[in-house]
C-alpha cells in the first residue's frame, strides 16, 4: 500500500477515441498509471460522514459529487477488503479440501518415488570420470529402465487436474525432490524434444539456455550434491502429447537415467492402456510403470461443496436459484470443478459489488476467527465497519425486522445462529444421503428452496407440539415450518433412515454426534438417541447408565423414554430437525447481507452467449435502443431501423442461401418506401424490375443505398452471421445461424 498521500496531479486526458493514427497501429500505450491512487487510498479510513443514499453502481450524485465520490470509494474499498478476506478464506478452504482428498495418493506416490530412487542408486553411481563426459553412460539394458508413475485422473477435463499436479509437485518438492513439469504444449511436435529439454533446464536450473543439452542438466545435478535427491518430471496429460516426441523424450531420459536419476509421472485421463496407444513400442519398453488412482470429479465436487457452503465459516451463502443454476451448469454444461469454483468467485464478487452491506461479512469472519478482538488493527477496522453499517441500515432499503430492532449486533448474531443450525441439519441429512447415494448439491438445492417453508396449519402445529413437547423460541418460527417435497431428496433421505441396518445406524449416529457439536440443543438430542441405541443393542457401559439416569431426571430424554423402535426414533428426530431448524436462507431476515441471489447476473457473467444475444440485438433493435418510432410498429420493418437490423430481418425470409440481388432489392424497398408497410414481408422475393420507372428519386440516393447495403453486409460479416459469396456461387451469401 502506498505510504503517503502524494499531491494529486491530474493530467488532463484527451480522449484518444477519434485519433486516426492510433487506429491503425497494432498496439500503443494509451496512458501510464497516474499517481492518483496513492492519494485515494490514504483517505480510506477517514473522518466521519453522513450517508444519505448509496447507489451500488457508482457515484452519480449531483448535489455534492465530491463527498459522494469519496464516500463511495471508501465503501468500495471496505467491500474490496471484505471480499479479499472472504474469498481468500474460501480459496484456501477449497485448496485444503482438494489437497486432503489427494493426500493419500500423494503420499503413496512420494513413497514410490523414493523406492524407485533407491532402486536406481543400487545400479551404482557413475565414476567421476564418466560423470563428466558429455554423453550418457553406456550401461546394460536393465539399467536404462525409467520408473514411471501413471496417475489415473478419472477425468477427461484436464483443467481440473492442473491444480492437482501442481500440488503434487509441491508435495514432492517438500520431500526433497527436484520437480519439473511439462505441459502438452511443450511436448508437441512444434516445440519438439529441444523445447522439452529447455523447459526442464529453465525449471530446474532457473536459467534460460539456448543450447538444449542434457549434459548441462547432468552437470547441474552433479553439483547439487551427489545423488541425494531424485529428479521428478511430471507430464500432466499424456493423451494430449505428441506421441513421437514423448517417445523420443522417454528414450532419451532412459539413456541418462544413471547420471540423472529421473522418475517420470504421467497423468492419464482415459484408461491404463493409454501409454500403449500413445507411445512407440521401443519407448514403452523403457518404462517400469506403477499405477495410482485419483478421486473422481464428483467426489471432489461433493467435498468442495460441503466445505465451502456448509462447513466453511465465512458465512457467504447462495440463494436457491443460484444453487439450482450451479447444479445444472455443473451437470449439463461444463462439468468441471474449476468452473464451479470460478462461478463461486463470480457470485462472491457480484455480491460484494451490489450489496452495500456486504462488507459486514468481514466482521463476521473476523469475529469467528479471533473470538475477542485483541488485534488493534482488526478492532479499528471493525469499528469502521459498524459505523458504516449502521448508517446504511437506517436506509429504508432494509425492512425493520421484528426482535432485532435493526441493531447490527442482533442481526449478525441471529444470522450466525441460523447458519450454524441450518448447516448442521443439511450435514445430518447428507450423512444419511451418502447411504443412498444422494448428491449433496441436490440436497442443497432443496434445502435452499424458500417455497418449501410453509405456514403451519393448526393441525400439524399441534401434532408437532405433541411430538416435540417443547415450545418454539420465536414468533417467526412459530408460523412457518419446512415441509419437504414428497418426491424430493430430503423426504427420500428421511425415509431412508428407516431401512438402515443397526450397524450403519450406529455409524450414522456417531457422525451426527460429531457434526452437531456446535449447536448444543441438537447435540443433546443426538446424544440421547445414541444412548437409546446403545441401550437397545446392549452396548451400554457403566458410564452410559449413569448418563441415562441423569437424563431421566431432565426433560430431555424423550428418545430414551419412548418405546418406539430405534429406526423410527431416528426418523422422527430427523423429521423434527428438518421442520424446526431448516430455514432456507432467503426466509431469514437480513439474509441480503450474506446471501447472493441474483442468478441472472451470475449467469450472464459466467456464460456469455454471443451467438444468441447478438442475433437478438439485431432482431430486437428497438427494445434495446428504446426509440419511440420503431417500438410502435414492432412487427413491420421501418426504414428508420438500423440498417443491419433491416438486413438481418430480411435475411430471415431466405433459406440457407441468400440471393444478393434480391436481398438488395428488398432492402432498397424498405429503406426508400416508408409507406409500404407490411407489403415487403411477403415470402415472395420482390421483383426488381418495378423500380426502373422512377429514375429521378433513385439516382440521387442510389450510391447511398448501395453503400448502406454494403456496410450492413460487412457488419453482418464481422459478426459472423454471414458467409461471403464463393467463386462457385458469386451471387449468393450463405446464412450461418438458424434460429436463436
Amino acid at each position: 500500500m502506498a505510504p503517503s498521500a502524494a499531491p494529486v496531479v491530474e493530467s488532463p486526458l484527451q480522449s484518444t477515441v477519434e485519433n486516426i493514427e492510433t487506429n491503425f497501429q497494432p498496439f500503443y500505450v494509451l496512458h501510464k498509471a497516474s499517481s492518483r491512487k496513492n492519494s485515494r487510498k490514504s483517505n480510506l479510513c477517514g473522518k466521519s460522514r453522513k450517508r444519505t443514499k448509496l447507489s451500488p453502481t457508482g457515484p452519480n450524485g449531483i448535489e455534492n459529487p465530491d463527498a459522494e465520490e469519496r464516500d463511495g470509494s471508501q465503501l468500495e474499498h471496505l467491500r474490496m477488503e471484505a471480499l479479499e478476506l472472504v474469498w481468500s478464506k474460501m480459496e484456501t478452504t477449497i485448496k485444503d479440501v482438494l489437497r486432503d482428498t489427494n493426500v493419500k495418493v500423494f503420499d503413496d506416490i512420494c513413497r514410490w518415488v523414493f523406492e524407485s530412487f533407491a532402486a536406481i542408486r543400487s545400479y551404482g553411481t557413475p565414476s567421476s570420470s564418466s560423470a563428466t563426459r558429455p554423453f550418457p553412460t553406456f550401461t546394460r539394458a536393465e539399467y536404462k529402465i525409467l520408473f514411471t508413475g501413471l496417475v489415473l485422473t478419472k477425468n477427461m477435463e484436464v483443467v481440473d487436474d492442473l491444480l492437482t499436479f501442481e500440488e503434487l509437485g509441491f508435495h514432492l518438492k517438500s520431500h526433497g525432490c527436484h520437480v519439473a513439469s511439462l505441459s502438452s504444449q511443450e511436448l508437441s511436435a512444434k516445440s519438439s524434444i529441444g523445447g522439452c529439454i529447455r523447459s526442464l533446464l529453465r525449471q530446474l536450473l532457473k536459467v534460460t539456455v539456448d543450447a538444449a543439452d542434457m549434459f548441462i542438466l547432468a552437470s547441474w545435478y552433479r553439483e547439487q550434491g551427489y545423488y541425494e535427491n531424485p529428479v521428478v518430471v511430471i507430464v500432466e496429460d499424456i493423451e494430449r502429447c505428441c506421441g513421437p516426441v514423448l517417445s523420443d523424450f522417454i528414450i532419451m531420459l532412459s539413456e541418462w537415467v544413471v547420471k540423472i536419476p529421473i522418475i517420470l509421472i504421467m497423468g492419464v485421463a482415459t484408461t491404463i492402456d493409454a501409454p500403449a496407444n500413445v507411445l512407440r513400442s521401443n519407448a514403452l519398453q523403457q518404462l517400469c510403470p506403477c499405477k495410482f488412482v485419483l478421486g473422481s470429479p464428483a467426489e471432489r465436487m461433493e467435498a468442495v461443496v460441503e466445505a465451502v457452503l456448509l462447513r466453511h465459516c465465512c458465512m457467504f451463502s447462495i440463494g436457491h436459484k443460484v444453487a439450482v443454476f450451479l447444479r445444472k451448469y455443473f451437470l449439463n454444461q461444463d462439468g468441471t470443478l474449476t468452473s464451479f469454483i470460478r462461478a463461486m468467485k463470480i457470485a462472491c464478487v457480484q455480491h460484494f459489488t451490489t450489496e452495500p452491506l456486504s462488507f459486514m461479512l468481514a466482521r463476521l469472519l473476523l469475529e469467528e476467527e479471533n473470538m475477542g478482538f485483541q488485534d488493534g488493527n482488526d478492532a479499528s477496522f471493525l469499528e469502521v465497519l459498524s459505523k458504516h453499517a449502521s448508517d446504511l441500515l437506517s436506509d429504508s432499503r432494509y425492512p425493520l425486522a421484528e426482535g432485532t430492532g435493526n441493531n447490527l449486533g442482533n442481526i449478525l448474531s441471529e444470522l450466525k445462529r441460523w447458519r450454524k443450525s441450518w448447516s448442521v441439519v443439511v450435514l445430518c441429512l447428507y450423512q444419511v444421503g451418502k447411504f443412498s447415494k444422494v448428491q449433496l448439491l441436490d440436497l442443497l438445492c432443496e434445502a435452499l428452496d424458500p417455497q418449501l417453508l410453509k405456514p403451519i396449519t393448526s393441525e400439524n402445529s399441534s401434532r408437532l407440539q405433541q411430538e416435540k413437547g417443547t415450545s418454539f423460541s420465536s414468533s417467526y418460527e412459530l408460523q412457518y415450518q419446512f415441509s419437504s417435497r414428497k418426491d424430493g431428496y430430503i423426504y427420500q433421505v428421511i425415509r431412508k433412515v428407516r431401512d438402515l441396518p443397526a450397524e450403519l445406524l450406529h455409524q450414522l449416529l456417531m457422525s451426527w454426534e460429531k457434526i452437531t457439536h456446535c449447536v448444543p440443543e441438537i447435540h443433546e438430542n443426538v446424544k440421547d438417541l445414541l444412548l437409546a441405541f446403545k441401550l437397545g443393542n446392549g452396548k451400554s457401559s457403566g458410564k452410559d447408565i449413569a448418563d441415562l439416569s441423569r437424563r431421566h431426571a431432565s426433560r430431555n430424554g424423550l428418545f430414551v423414554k419412548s418405546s418406539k423402535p430405534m429406526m423410527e426414533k431416528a426418523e422422527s428426530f430427523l423429521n423434527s430437525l428438518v421442520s424446526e431448524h431448516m430455514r432456507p436462507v432467503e426466509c431469514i431476515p437480513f439474509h441480503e447481507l450474506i446471501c447472493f441471489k441474483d442468478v441472472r447476473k451470475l449467469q450472464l457473467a459466467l456464460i456469455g452467449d454471443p451467438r444468441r444475444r447478438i442475433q437478438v440485438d439485431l432482431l430486437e433493435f428497438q427494445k434495446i435502443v428504446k426509440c419511440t418510432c420503431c417500438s410502435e410498429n414492432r412487427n413491420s420493418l421501418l426504414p428508420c431501423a438500423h440498417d443491419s437490423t433491416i438486413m438481418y430481418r430480411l435475411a430471415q425470409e431466405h433459406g440457407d442461401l441468400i440471393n444478393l440481388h434480391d436481398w438488395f432489392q428488398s432492402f432498397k424497398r424498405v429503406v426508400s418506401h416508408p409507406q409500404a408497410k407490411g407489403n415487403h414481408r411477403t415470402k415472395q422475393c420482390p421483383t426488381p424490375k418495378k423500380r426502373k420507372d422512377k429514375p429521378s428519386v433513385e439516382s440521387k440516393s442510389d450510391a447511398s443505398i448501395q453503400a448502406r447495403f454494403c456496410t450492413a453486409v460487412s457488419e453482418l460479416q464481422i459478426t459472423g452471421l454471414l458467409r461471403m459469396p464463393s467463386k462457385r456461387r458469386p451471387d449468393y451469401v450463405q446464412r450461418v445461424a438458424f434460429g436463436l
Partner: protein
Amino acid sequence: MEIDDLDDEELAFSRNYFLAKELGGSKKKSSGKLADIDVVDEQELRAAAANIEPKHEKEIAALISSYKSLYSKWVFELRCGFGLLMYGFGSKKALIEDFASTALMDYSVIVVNGYLQSVNIKQVIVAIAEVLSDQLKSRLKNASGSTPNVHQSFTSRSMDDLFTFLNGSNEEDKDCFVCVLIHNIDGPGLRDSEMQEYIARVAACSHVRIIASVDHVNSPLLWDKKMVHTQFNWLWYHVPTFAPYKIEGMFFPLILAHGGTAQSAKTATIVLQSLTPNAQSVFKVLIEHQLSHPDEEGMPINNLYAICRERFLVSSQVTLNSHLTEFKDHELVKTRRHSDGQDCLYIPLPSEALEKLLMELS
C-alpha cells in the same frame, strides 16, 4: 424438467436448420444476378459509405452513456482478478476506450487493435513488460527513495522470461497491474490458436488484466476450458452499442464493389504485370484463343504447348506447367473437361474484359 428444456431448445435449433435448407431447395432458385444491380463506381461507393447518416443518434448515445454507470463495477472486477469480455452488436471500440481513459487512470493501459491484419504479439508483450517495469520502478521509488538498478532491454529477452517477469509476485500490492485493452480479440490478426495461447498466457499473469471485445458469434470457440477458466477468467458483459463498425469494417471489401467486369480485368492486369514477359505472352495466347473461339469449352493443354513452343515462349512442358500453376493460383485460369474427354484451359472472364486485358498487356 430442465433436461427437457434443453432438448426442446436443441430440437428447435435443428428444425430451423432443416427448414431453412428446405426453403433454399424447394423454392425456385432466384435467378437474380449481382451484375443486374446498377452499381455505382467503387470510389463513389466508398465515399458514400464513409458518409452514411447515422440513425437514432440520440438514443444510441444514451445507450452508450448508460454503460458509464457500470464503469466502477468493471474496475472493481478487474481488481478482483477477472478479465472483462464485451460483446453485443455494434462497435465497442469507443466504449472501452472511454472506459479506459476515464475509469482506469490509476493503471497503465495498452491498446491492441485486433481488427488489424497482423499484430506482433511479442512486441505487445515487450511493451507490457516495459510499462510494468516503469510502474514498479516508480512505486519502489516512492517507497524507498532508491531505484532498482536491474534493467535489461526486454526485446532481447525470451518469451518465457517475459512471462516470468509479468507473473512476478504481487503480494505486497495486489493493485499493481497493467490493463491490456484488446479490440476484437477474435479479429483476423489474433484469430489463430497459437496467438490465443499467447494472449491467454499473458492474461494469466498476475500483473496483467485484459479487457477485450468480441464481435463474432462463434468467438467462444477460440478458447478451451483451461483458457477460459484458469487463464482469461472472463466476465462476460453484453453491451450492444449499435455504433457503426467504421474502423473494424475498413478491411472488409464492399460486396457490391466486386464482381464487375472492370474490376476483374483490373485485378487480372495487376497480377499479370507482376509476372515475366514470357508468362504474359503465354497468357496472351490463351486470351487470343478464347476470343477467337468463344463457343468452345477452352483450349486443350497440348495445343497451348504447341503454340507456345512455336513462338519460343516455353522450352518444355515443365516450364509451361509452372506458368499455368501461377495462373491457377491467382485464379486467372481454370480447367474444365472438354466434351471429348480432355482437359482444357479457360479464363473465367467475359469477352469484354479479355479484350480490355489484351489491350493493357500490349
